[in-house]
């Protein structure tokens, strides 16, 4: 490379950084930087009225799993915390699986419409995705609450005599999360199916494959990247869900997100809240890294 070329390349790189700097600054101040403070806070002592006191301590991290017995100061497993973690993981996994089970047929349906009507179906899936999460949660509340649409219809039909108590249970949170995150599963699945050459199916059937064989041997492998992307997109926000469990779980069916908030409110244990936030961040990061590795491997195979 000549000197002039080299100068041009380094000028181009310099320009790239100059142009990106304002965005990086805003994100460093308004998003990334404060995360570092949370990390520091997780190793400090809790203040009496919220906030922290300066002094190194592992109590925040220890508090994730253990509580001190009030009588003899021995550490015991914090059952209440474990219940919350288990509920978060269980509901997030169930949501991911269920959104796939109904999202896959939906994505397939959209991808197999005529080129003219396809954008409209796609648009219909996108609208709920961009609609306020709170409004959607509130909408599902209208359906499943004690005096809601579902109970009214079931009672009118005479199928039940007393209203079903769905609201403020795990089931309500599950239904809400499926409703809220479904578009995040459908969209990447659609993207995967849309690229797929339908002639492969014809080839399969021509070679006397049964429907099930075609589904297992041709369709599923092609859908797989969309499935992985969709699962990440659904699982990650489910795990950190805050609004849906708060509205539909009624404060009792807490998930990690609500538990974190509690530490900064009435519970007032900021280091524990900080440690919990970091834990959530670590779990999410691992999930994303696994995904990136998978995606890169797929790219390498093509």
């Amino acid at each position, binding site marked *: 490379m000549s000197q002039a070329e080299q100068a041009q390349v380094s000028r181009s790189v310099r320009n790239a950084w100059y142009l990106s700097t304002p965005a990086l600054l805003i994100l460093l101040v308004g998003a990334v930087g404060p995360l570092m403070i949370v990390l520091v806070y997780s190793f400090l002592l809790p203040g009496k009225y919220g906030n922290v006191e300066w002094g190194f301590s592992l109590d925040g991290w220890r508090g994730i799993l253990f509580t001190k017995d009030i009588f003899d100061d021995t550490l015991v497993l914090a059952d209440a915390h474990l219940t919350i973690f288990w509920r978060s993981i269980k509901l997030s996994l169930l949501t991911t699986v269920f959104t796939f089970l109904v999202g896959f047929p939906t994505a397939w349906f959209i991808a197999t419409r005529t080129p003219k009507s396809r954008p409209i179906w796609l648009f*219909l899936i996108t609208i709920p995705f961009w609609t306020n999460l709170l409004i959607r949660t509130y909408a599902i509340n209208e359906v499943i609450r004690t005096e809601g649409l579902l109970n009214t219809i079931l009672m009118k039909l005479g199928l039940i005599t007393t209203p079903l108590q769905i609201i403020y249970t795990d089931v309500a949170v599950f239904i809400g999360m499926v409703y809220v995150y479904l578009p995040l599963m459908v969209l990447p699945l659609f993207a995967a199916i849309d690229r797929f050459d339908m002639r492969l199916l014809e080839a399969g059937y021509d070679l006397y494959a049964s429907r099930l064989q075609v589904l297992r041997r041709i369709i599923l492998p092609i859908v797989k990247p969309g499935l992985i992307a969709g699962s990440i997109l659904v699982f990650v926000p489910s795990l950190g869900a805050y609004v849906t469990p708060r509205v539909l779980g009624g404060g009792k069916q807490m998930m990690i997100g609500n538990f974190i908030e509690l530490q900064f409110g009435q519970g007032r244990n900021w280091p524990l809240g900080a440690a919990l936030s970091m834990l959530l961040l670590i779990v999410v990061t691992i999930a994303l890294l696994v995904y990136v590795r998978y995606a890169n491997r797929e790219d390498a195979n093509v």
Partner: protein
Amino acid sequence: MSDRAFQVSRLPGFATIAIGVFLALYIPIFTLAAYSFNTNISMSSWGGFSLDWYVKAWNNDQVKDATLRSLIIALWAAVISTAVATLAALGTTRRKAFKGQTFIYVIINQPLMVPEIVTAVALLIFFAQIKVITGYQGLGYLILAHSAFCVPFAYLPIRARLEGMDLSLETAAADLYATPWRTFRHVTLPLLLPGVIAGAMLAFVISLDDVVITEFVKSGGQDTLPTYMLGQLRRQMTPEINAISTALLVLTIALLTAFFLINRQNDKN
């Protein structure tokens, strides 16, 4: 035709499930909207059509304040995030890969990856300190926080537009002795504009929708429409909330439809 032709892309039961999904997606939204026109307060029975709840919401000063605040924040956030995202998109596309490019991508897309609750807690801690030091309590914190998480939403459509753009027009302008600035002003920017508008609209909608980060960052008396609604849900729920939701819903759908149509126009060109 008595026997339908065998279609390879048809899978049994899929269409039924898909239609069921679309119904399940829209029935709750329509129920929500329908009850906003209900005369009864109890929400368990239909008492007849009325616009009372809209009038009530319109005359509610808290709702008015919150709406105005939401719009101000969303407007600022959309302008700021789109401006910096446009620059960043120009910086990170259409040049050779360079060291640190991945770093820039990761930082820009960070709000899409980190759970909102974690960012919310982080900003709560950080801004609490700043508030003590500076004594400033204004909307600036919310605008900064919103601008930050809107950046990736503004960045992605702009970048997509840039990557799809034809370099030859700019080369032609340069060949005709246009200065880099004039080339940018008269060739690049007009071509980029649909992407910028799309990005700004997405940023606006995303800011308008935010609950979690706003709930943690806001100072007393700084409710936006979504946090006001969240606060109301704890108390007695009245169809007033339905009316507000429906109004917000209509606004979002109007913006999205415009976005959809602009995009379609782009694809055609």
